[in-house]
């Protein structure tokens, strides 16, 4: 066992902590956290490899179908989080963009009578239309208070669902159907899976980039104190709208993907009231506003949802179970997995450090601050305070992130 002292993250004070400032303001004491970062990147790489080879290894069509659904939700949640998580404006109307993307792609496919193969090229178009639709919607919705915002997104949702029912070109009750099978039935799900994976990974990467950028900082400032942010010169409307439109565009693309996968868009399935609720729940389960949280939430919840749907064949019972599950998550893990997990890890590490110090000839804190380790009682402050400033790029809840939490 190495004699290296454990990095207890938030508690170390003193000049030794002044390392080169990292993106997002987190500081990097040499050595120890380079280790943590490598660990994190390693986990990420492993996950990506697993994700990439999954359908090649597990060929059972049922499971790959689960996988496609999961990828769709991972992407949808990441897109939702990009706006709602960062600005704090909870949107329960993203189904609008999902459905718009689905219908766009579906109608264009019918119109242009496309054969199989190049269909995925239409996805960006679906995303574009959704993004364009988001502009006027956003201009209206983003001027209101947060409470009102949620409801107005719900109102938009109902309007769009009704439009889908009533407008002639959307096919009314019949919706829009895909007329063909695209490729061999054996590996049918795989292309969808990979496209979904690409979209999801791209969205998560974009989220990470945004988180550390000037744009992202503005969004987070808006979340914390919008008026103050505006008073300091942040162009709040423009910033919010940009995030809103980006989120909508990605969601639209995913809707398009979904249309290809399911082969049919009906008003009630393309504009599904449970979609937004599920997405929001996944985000809260994982940790609202963090980077990894929503993804984790989707990875857990979507297969779970599918499993419930299969186990409880009575649709109503499965609804009850689902509702109960939602409640349990909200009541018992309000901050979500990632922050709770992070706090747990920090507490564990502190306990370790304390235990180590208690041992005779305890470790010399080589590289840690001259101030020594923290006075007991202060460690859990600092980073674990809120799900807000997620650890950039983290896909595992290890808190290598060193931030000084020197509270007096």
């Amino acid at each position: 066992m190495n004699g290296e002292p454990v990095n207890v993250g938030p508690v170390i004070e003193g000049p030794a902590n002044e390392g080169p400032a990292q993106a997002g303001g987190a500081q990097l004491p040499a050595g120890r956290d380079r280790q943590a970062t490598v660990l994190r990147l390693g986990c990420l790489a492993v996950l990506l490899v697993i994700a990439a080879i999954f359908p090649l290894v597990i060929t059972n069509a049922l499971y790959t179908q689960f996988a496609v659904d999961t990828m769709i939700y991972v992407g949808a949640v990441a897109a939702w989080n990009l706006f709602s998580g960062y600005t704090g404006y909870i949107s329960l109307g993203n189904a609008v963009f999902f459905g718009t993307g689905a219908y766009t792609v579906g109608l264009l496919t019918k119109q242009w009578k496309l054969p199989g193969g190049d269909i995925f090229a239409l996805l960006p178009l679906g995303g574009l239309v959704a993004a364009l639709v988001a502009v006027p919607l956003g201009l209206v919705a983003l001027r209101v208070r947060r409470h009102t915002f949620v409801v107005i997104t719900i109102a938009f949702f109902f309007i769009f669902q009704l439009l889908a029912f009533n407008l002639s070109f959307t096919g009314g009750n019949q919706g829009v159907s895909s007329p063909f099978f695209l490729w061999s039935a054996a590996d049918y799900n795989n292309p969808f899976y990979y496209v979904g994976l690409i979209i999801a990974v791209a969205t998560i990467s974009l989220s990470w980039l945004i988180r550390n950028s000037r744009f992202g900082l503005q969004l987070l400032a808006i979340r914390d104190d919008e008026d103050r942010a505006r008073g300091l010169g942040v162009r709040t409307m423009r910033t919010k709208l940009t995030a809103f439109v980006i989120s909508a565009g990605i969601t639209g693309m995913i809707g398009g993907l979904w249309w290809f996968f399911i082969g049919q868009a009906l008003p009630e399935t393309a504009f599904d009231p449970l979609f937004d609720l599920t997405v929001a729940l996944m985000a809260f389960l994982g940790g609202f506003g963090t980077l990894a949280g929503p993804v984790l939430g989707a990875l857990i919840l979507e297969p779970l949802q599918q499993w419930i749907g299969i186990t409880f064949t009575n649709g109503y019972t499965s609804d009850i179970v689902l509702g109960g599950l939602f409640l349990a998550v909200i009541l018992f893990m309000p901050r979500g997995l990632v922050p709770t997990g992070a706090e747990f890890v920090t507490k564990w590490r502190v306990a370790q450090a304390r235990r180590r110090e208690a041992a005779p000839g305890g470790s010399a804190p080589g590289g840690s601050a001259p101030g020594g380790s923290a006075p007991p009682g202060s460690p859990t402050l600092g980073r674990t305070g809120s799900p807000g400033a997620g650890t950039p790029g983290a896909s595992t809840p290890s808190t290598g992130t060193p931030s000084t939490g020197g509270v007096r």
Partner: protein
Amino acid sequence: MGRELSEAIVDGILGGSVYALMAVGLTLIFGVLDIINIAQGILVVLGAYLSYVLSVHLHIDLFAGLLVTVPAMFIIGVAIQWAFIRPLRGRERTSMSLLATYAVAIIIEGILYIIFGSNYVNLNASYVTEGPKIFGFYLDYIYIYGFLMALLLVLAIYFTLYRTPFGRSVRATMQDQTAARIVGISVNRVQALTFGIGVAVTAAGGMVFGATSGGFNPNTGYDLISRLLAIIILGGLGSIGGAMIAAIFMITLEGVVDVVWSPSWSVVVFYGALVLVLAFRPQGLLGRKAARAQ
């Protein structure tokens, strides 16, 4: 046409009063607890089903049955608040209460489906299908009774709010929770009771709704809650007067569009009106222009 139009307007006002009752409960809950009770829609349906059971299986008159259903719904409301809303803490409390009440709604809907199935049912009584002829219109008695009851209950709410000590506590809590606590108001109790009241009025509203809707089943809850939400937003969150005006206005508008244009578009107009109003007046008709973006 003119005749149909006037009838639509009158129907709208009468029907709107029932929606007003349910909307007042919802906006009251928001004002005092700062949460949006998504379950309000399905609770209306639950109230309707309760009336249904009393009416069909126990042959109790619809209005008389309210003596049972209203207290029952009150208790259910308090229970829901205590079990699922009160424990919520933290910065995202409002959003989480939204999800929590949505989850509760799903559960209640599932239970109702299992008990009653998906068939449409109706509340019936002599006065539902009969009515006087006033100024050449046929008006079912139920509408008149419903309107009167709504009026009575809203007046009762106003009276409670403005003339009783409890009402004072409620208004204080609406203004400032912390200050209310400081002067000794048990905010927890006020919140629980207010939630109960807000839900209890749905029992009354549910009964009239069940009698006049032309058939309901558990799925009706979705439509209801989306309308109620639109109404309270239009009226201004937390404003009781606003909720009433908005309810009557929107239901009447929808009824008129129904007649003048087409039924399938009336609903779009309903929500479109909300969006339009918010585009020009983000705080709703009677809402206060609070500090933006809470």
